[in-house]
C-alpha cells in the first residue's frame, strides 16, 4: 500500500493512527524502519480512533442498505462492504465542504454513469458458447460490485453460483431475483 501511495500520488505516508489492537503490532518494526509515526489510542478510549470508527458505522449503514435492497444472503457481505466503500468515495461529504473524497484525492469529479443497481437481475453474455448453436447465449446473474482496475462489473451467476467479471451485460435494474427468498439466514 505504501509503495502504491508513493508511486500514484507522489506522497509519503507520514502518520498512521489506529487503536491498540494486536493486529497492527506486528507492523511496528516496519513503521520504525521507514520513519512512519505510529499513533495508537489509549486503552479503553476508542474516541481517539473516532474517525475510522465513524466511517465503519457509515460503511455498515450503506452496506446493510445494499444488502436489504438486493434481498441478499449474509454470504454477500464482502460485496456489500466493498460496494459501500466505492459509493462513499463518490458521495459528497459535509466535512469536505460538499466535495467528494474522490475529488479531494484526484482533483477531478468522479463519473457516475457507470453506477448500477446493486443486487439487480442482469444477463451477461456467455463467452465461448461451448454448448453449440442451440445453447443459451446468456447467463442469468445479479450485479454485485465494481472490480478494481478493470472496465467491467462483478456478477454472481445464479445458476452456477460463481462470481465473475463481465462487460457485455444487459441490466434489468428493477428485478431482484433474491426477493422471494428470506434474508434472515
Amino acid at each position, binding site marked *: *500500500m505504501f509503495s502504491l*501511495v508513493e508511486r500514484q*500520488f507522489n*506522497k*509519503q*505516508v*507520514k*502518520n*498512521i*493512527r*489506529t*487503536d491498540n*489492537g494486536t*493486529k*497492527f503490532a506486528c507492523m511496528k518494526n516496519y513503521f520504525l524502519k521507514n520513519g512512519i509515526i505510529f499513533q495508537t489510542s489509549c486503552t479503553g*478510549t476508542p*474516541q481517539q*480512533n*473516532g*474517525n*475510522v*470508527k465513524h*466511517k*465503519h458505522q457509515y*460503511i*455498515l449503514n450503506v452496506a446493510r442498505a445494499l444488502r436489504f435492497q438486493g434481498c441478499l444472503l*449474509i*454470504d454477500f*457481505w*464482502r460485496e456489500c*462492504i466493498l460496494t459501500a*466503500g466505492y459509493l*462513499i*468515495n463518490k458521495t459528497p*461529504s459535509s*466535512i*469536505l465542504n460538499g466535495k467528494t*473524497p*474522490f475529488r*479531494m*484525492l484526484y482533483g477531478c469529479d468522479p463519473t457516475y454513469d457507470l453506477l448500477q443497481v446493486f443486487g439487480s437481475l442482469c444477463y451477461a453474455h456467455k463467452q465461448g458458447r461451448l454448448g453449440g448453436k442451440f445453447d443459451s447465449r446468456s447467463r442469468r446473474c445479479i450485479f454485485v460490485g465494481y472490480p478494481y482496475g478493470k472496465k467491467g462489473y462483478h456478477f454472481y451467476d445464479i445458476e452456477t453460483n460463481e462470481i465473475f467479471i463481465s462487460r457485455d451485460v444487459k441490466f434489468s435494474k428493477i428485478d431482484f431475483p433474491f426477493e422471494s427468498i428470506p434474508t434472515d439466514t
Partner: protein
Amino acid sequence: MQATKIVSGVDLKKGTKNLNKCCDVCQRAKQTENKFPISDFRASDAYELIHCDLWGPINEASYFLTIIDDYSRVV
C-alpha cells in the same frame, strides 16, 4: 458557602491547608473519565495522516480492514 452565609457553624480555617489536595476518598468515590474534546486537526495534504481499523468478526473469523486518508477521507 461560608462567605455567602449559606451555611453557618463550619470553621473552614481549620482545614484550609488540605483544601486543594487530591483526596483519596473523593477519587475512589467520584472519579470520572476526562472530557473528550472534538479534535480540530485536519491533515493539510493527502496521505499525511491515515486512520486504520479492523472491523469484524463476521461469519466466525472474517474481518475487513478500513484505511482512511485524513485529508481526502477516501476509504
